[in-house]
């Protein structure tokens, strides 16, 4: 088979890989986007769908703000709006301590442009009467939610239309340096030669990083989601809880999506399912926190496979061992909102070798240079039981 020669080969067709592919193609580059199964079918397609800046650690906010500008333009960028709704994001505090934590966060990120509003108990009752019992909340009016099943798939489809070689069901079995570039071996004798390689393989990215001498402490997580039958409007905004618990949103068609707890992998570890006990826990929490959902029926659960880093920050930036290799993975359950921005950043890194968006905090160096970094504490990221 004649090898496919491209400027950039991207391993992993999730939202990060697909948006990078589209951005690179629009810069005029020849791009191959390879996925072991289907583009947008893993973490990018089965996540909760929160489009949220609020609660992110401050070091992620410049990147998150960059993405924030892209979301309303999806229609012109990829041809569909991805059901993006700028509903606002309400982070609830159910204890005084959680409220203090929301206040501390708001103070810390005042310059980031999130326009957070701290809301006391009475005002919460007045503005969001469908919330059961909470001490207070922090509201980010510019945040929202979207349909994850559409957005990543939409980016991949747009990339394909723009001329990217989208190769699905094409697992990359080996990547090696070859002179100035790389050779990728990818299923059924296919070889791809590329000057630059982007490792956006999500929960499978650690293998590729390790093969270039950069082992990382990536852990697989399986978020757990339930969806109700379609209902009259109850949840008018995207909801999270400080300190974890559940997160919930209602789509325009009426279904409420509630997430929390963790699922577990199946015998084929590429697939996972919520646990019954975990699902029942989040169902109960939702019915308690939102009395309007107390009579609702759950019609479907889902889970997915995501990659988590110990400090809940992604690995984003050039490899330290291998020129021409760029990593972008480990978004720790909170990649959906920032991925379109990451795609642009990756394209700049390929073309210019640098990006105006600060990403130093996400360098893979933090895992190779001595002691592992401390867990990010400001903001929720997406640690255990926390909000994506």
């Amino acid at each position: 088979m004649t090898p496919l020669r491209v400027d950039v080969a991207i391993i992993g067709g999730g939202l990060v890989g697909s948006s990078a592919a589209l951005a690179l193609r629009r810069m005029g580059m020849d791009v191959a986007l390879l996925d072991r199964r289907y583009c947008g079918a893993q973490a990018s397609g089965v996540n909760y769908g929160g489009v949220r800046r609020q609660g992110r650690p401050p070091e992620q906010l410049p990147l998150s703000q960059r993405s924030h500008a892209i979301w309303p333009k999806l229609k012109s960028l990829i041809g569909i709006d991805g059901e993006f709704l700028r509903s606002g994001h309400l982070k609830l505090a159910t204890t005084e301590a959680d409220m203090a934590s929301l206040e501390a966060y708001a103070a810390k990120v005042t310059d980031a442009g999130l326009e957070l509003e701290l809301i006391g108990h009475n005002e919460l009752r007045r503005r969001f009467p469908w919330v059961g019992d909470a001490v207070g909340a922090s509201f980010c009016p510019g945040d929202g939610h979207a349909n994850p099943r559409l957005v990543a798939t939409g980016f991949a489809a747009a990339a394909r239309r723009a001329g990217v070689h989208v190769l699905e069901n094409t697992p990359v079995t080996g990547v090696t340096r070859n002179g100035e570039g790389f050779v990728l071996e990818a299923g059924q004798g296919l070889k791809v030669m590329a000057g630059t390689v982007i490792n956006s393989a999500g929960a499978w990215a650690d293998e590729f990083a390790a093969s270039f001498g950069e082992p990382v402490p990536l852990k697989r997580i399986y978020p757990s989601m339930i969806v109700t039958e379609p209902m009259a409007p109850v949840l008018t905004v995207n909801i999270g809880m400080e300190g974890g618990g559940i997160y919930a949103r209602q789509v325009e068609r009426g279904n409420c999506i509630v997430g929390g707890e963790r699922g577990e992998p199946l015998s084929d570890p590429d697939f996972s399912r919520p646990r019954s006990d975990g699902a029942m826990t989040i169902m109960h929490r939702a019915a308690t926190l939102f009395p309007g959902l107390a009579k609702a029926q759950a019609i479907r659960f889902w889970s997915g496979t995501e990659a988590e880093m110990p400090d809940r920050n992604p690995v984003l930036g050039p490899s330290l061992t291998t020129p021409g290799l760029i990593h972008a993975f480990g978004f720790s359950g909170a990649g959906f909102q920032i991925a379109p921005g990451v795609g642009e950043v990756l394209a700049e890194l390929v073309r210019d070798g640098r990006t105006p968006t600060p990403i130093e905090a996400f360098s893979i160096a933090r895992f190779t240079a001595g002691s592992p970094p401390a867990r990010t504490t400001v903001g929720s990221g997406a640690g255990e039981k926390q909000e994506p």
Partner: protein
Amino acid sequence: MSLFQRIARQDHAPVPFMLDGKPCEGREGDTLLTAILTNADKVRVSEFSGAPRAGFCQMGACQDCWVTLADGERVRACTTPLAPGMHILTGASA
């Protein structure tokens, strides 16, 4: 006008219930689906198009006959026995 035609149980004990605020009568041994469709010609309307529906499989498989009771409870009409005093909402007026 009703969809269903009773062949048996005509003389069974009547069971009073309300359908969208209107007093109706079923028979002992009725499911909600039977009780509704011997009095009316739909059990619900589609959430999306507003088109009328009256169930389909009648064996709890297709889930096309979920109705709301006046207390907000959601039940599948074809597998729920009728009880006296139930108030069923088809959502038709909503």
